């Protein structure tokens, strides 16, 4: 596995260089080598995850650029969702899960004891595979985060936050006149955009998306992809996807995971046109997975 590829093992945190990829773990000011002009938002080093006795993720290290879309691809059970959940410490909610290694957002260690996961998750939003609007009105769904974090003083500010978030999620036009409707009454695609609006209502810096389109039809999927592309301007977006076409369409960098290990990481174009690892090639050409 230690190889000539743009590869994880290069990022083990000891600063060893491999080819053209410079792993950085020093400070948030560093620019990302894959994208050149974008700063590094999330830097991970040697992340292992265990569920009870079973190790799900082996020694993953990679840096994720800000203001771009990074896609994690790989066959089911390869650990990509697990890795995603390390970034907002969602693995804490699973009793048996244990995470080691370092995950830094803007240079700040996420796994540090002093970090309150509740505050962290306000900075790192998350969108799930199945649209999961709360059993509340559309308005209350979006206002949920601002309320629990006390982001607004009064009704007007709440209204403003809700409207902005819904506009950013491209849902405002469709629901402006029926904000009292239960969120569950919307269509699947609308629900997913509602959930995205809910996530961006608390002004996160990073948005994690765990297969955000796998439960949607192609039209709704296209709409979400458009939205992701728009959101890229302002957020660091990390998405897990099963659709390689989707990864190719919306992401700027792509990481391929296999059996709990990061196999290859590079600019999306390169991964899809000129993969360096044979496993990556086999996967994207549909030979397995």
């Amino acid at each position, binding site marked *: 596995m230690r190889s000539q590829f743009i590869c994880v093992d290069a990022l083990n945190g000891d600063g060893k260089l491999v080819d053209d990829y410079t792993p950085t773990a020093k400070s948030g000011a560093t620019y990302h080598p894959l994208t050149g002009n974008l700063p590094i938002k999330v830097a991970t080093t040697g992340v292992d995850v265990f569920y009870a006795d079973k190790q799900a993720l082996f020694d993953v290290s990679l840096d994720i650029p800000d203001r771009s879309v990074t896609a994690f691809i790989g066959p089911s059970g390869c650990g990509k969702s697990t890795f995603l959940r390390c970034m*907002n410490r*969602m693995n804490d*909610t699973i*009793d048996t899960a244990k995470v080691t290694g370092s995950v830094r957002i803007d240079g700040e260690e996420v796994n540090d004891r002093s970090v309150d*996961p*509740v*505050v*962290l*998750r*306000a900075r790192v*939003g*998350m969108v*799930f*595979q*199945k649209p*999961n*609007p*709360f*059993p*509340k009105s559309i308005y209350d769904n979006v206002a*949920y*985060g601002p309320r*629990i*974090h006390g982001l607004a003083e009064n009704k007007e500010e709440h209204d403003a936050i809700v409207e902005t978030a819904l506009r950013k999620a491209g849902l405002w036009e469709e629901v402006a006149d029926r904000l009292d409707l239960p969120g*569950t009454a919307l269509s699947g695609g609308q629900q997913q955009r509602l*959930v995205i609006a*809910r*996530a961006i209502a*608390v002004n996160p810096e990073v948005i*994690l998306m765990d297969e955000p389109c796998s439960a949607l039809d192609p039209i709704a999927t296209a709409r979400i992809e458009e939205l992701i592309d728009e959101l890229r301007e302002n957020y660091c977006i990390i998405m897990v996807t099963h659709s390689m076409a989707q990864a190719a369409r919306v992401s700027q960098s792509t990481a391929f995971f296999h059996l709990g290990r990061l196999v290859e990481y590079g600019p999306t174009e390169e991964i899809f046109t000129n993969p360096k690892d044979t496993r990556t090639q086999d996967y994207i050409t549909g030979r397995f997975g």
Partner: protein
Amino acid sequence: MHISLLTALALLVLTAIGFYIGRQRAYGAGRGRAASLHSLPNYYGYYIALWVGAPAFLLLAVYGVIGAGLVNMLVLKDLERAGAPLVAQYEAQLDQDQLYQDLQEQLVQSTAELEAVEREISYIRRENTVQAERYEDLRARLPEVSSQRISLINQIDAREEEIYLGVFQGAPVEGDGFTARAGFEFSHLPPERRQLYISNMRAYAFDEALASRDTPELRAAGALFRPYHQILRYSVAGLALALALAGLVFSRGKIAKRFRARNHVEKALSLLLFATSVIAVLTTLGIVCSLIFESLRFFGAIDWRLHEFLLGLHWSPQVGIRSDQIGQSGAFGAVPLFAGTALITVIAMAVAVPIGLMSAIYLSEYASPLMRSWAKPILEVLAGIPTVVYGFFALLTVGPFLRDVALMLGYENAATQSALSAGLVMGVMIIPFVSSLSDDVINAVPQTLRDGSYAMGATKSETVRAVVLPAALPGIVGAILLAVSRAVGETMIVVMAAGQGANLTINPLESVTTITVQIVALLTGDQEFDSAKTLSAFALGLVLFMLTLLLNIIALRVVQRYREKYD
């Protein structure tokens, strides 16, 4: 050995043989290759076994249900025939007896007089005409007239008895004479005592130890049973075996390579399942019907003053012992019972809902798997305690404790039996009910909702309060409604701990009574089942049934709608 048992054993053996034959024939038809048959060989076996066993066992079952009744009917016919001459003699003597005829005539007059007086009284009452003097006069006469009539009735009875005894003692006492005497005796019995007589006759036919009386007449009548019983028994056994053999021959002939035995067996199975569900439904229907009919009798007994029953504030179901007593028609205002039931239910729910719900939240959201595996079974032990144990816990521990506390706080009228003690203990009883149902619905809330909330930076309690509980609310409401219907119908605790007095109060320290308690009070002990007092129990039962049915329907609807939302 008992012939029915032998028949059943023989049928079982035949069925087994039928199964074996079916399988063998199937192999034969398929030339030893099971795959060339339409169904697996076992199905051919089941098919024949069904034809052998089912009709014959059905016959035995029918015989078991109606056999005894059939024999009784035949014997009673014989008994009537044997006793007919004596009955004729008795009736002739009654006709000729001057005293008896005179008494009958007087009774007719006396009845007419009584009716006239009663009519006039009720007329004056109804019209509110000012005839106070006449009214008082009539009221004064009434007891005299009615007691006169009762004494006449008694005299007639005594005269009848005299003549009856005369005829009975004059009857011959040898050979068939005893049977005739038995028939005469039986015909003279009032209807409610006939069942006992029949039981005694049957005792002498089958098992003397069960007899409660020993007379030559009973022994003679008992002898009538045996021949019928034997004939019926043997013919049924023979018929059952014949049916089994016929089934064997018929079904054996049908076994062929392309015969669809599997489909036939499937059909038989679905018939069996249908029959069992029909039994369940019919039983329920029967219970409901009996409730309704007895309630109708009660409403008839209170002259269809339904509003008095449902809205009346006074409950005292005592009815005069003699049917012609005035002003003893009882008071059947059930509101105090409804109020008592409601009070205790409210107290019980005030205990059970918060504790049950919160423990469900703790167990499903907070507790570690280890804690959960300990706490949940322990909580469910509460559900396994018999309600009578809760009852004496309420009566002997909680009740006196509450009374002492109330006395200490300066409340003088505190009683041991109070709505509070019954309600508290009932609440404890219902806790596992609420908690385990709520636990189920809370666990059914999809994990993605919780994840969504955590991912927004919500804490556990915020997530529970703002996401999990609202999502589970319909299910929780359903659980609570089911718990309410349980509390409303609970009997033993309130019988022991709530008291009997039908007080209309909202003071939880007073003793109140509930619908269920009154039903128990009305129906325990020796009761005549045609007085309004006893019948009112059925009307209360009907109200209770309607109430719990309604609650259950609403609860199930709510729960169902909740399920649709997340499945």
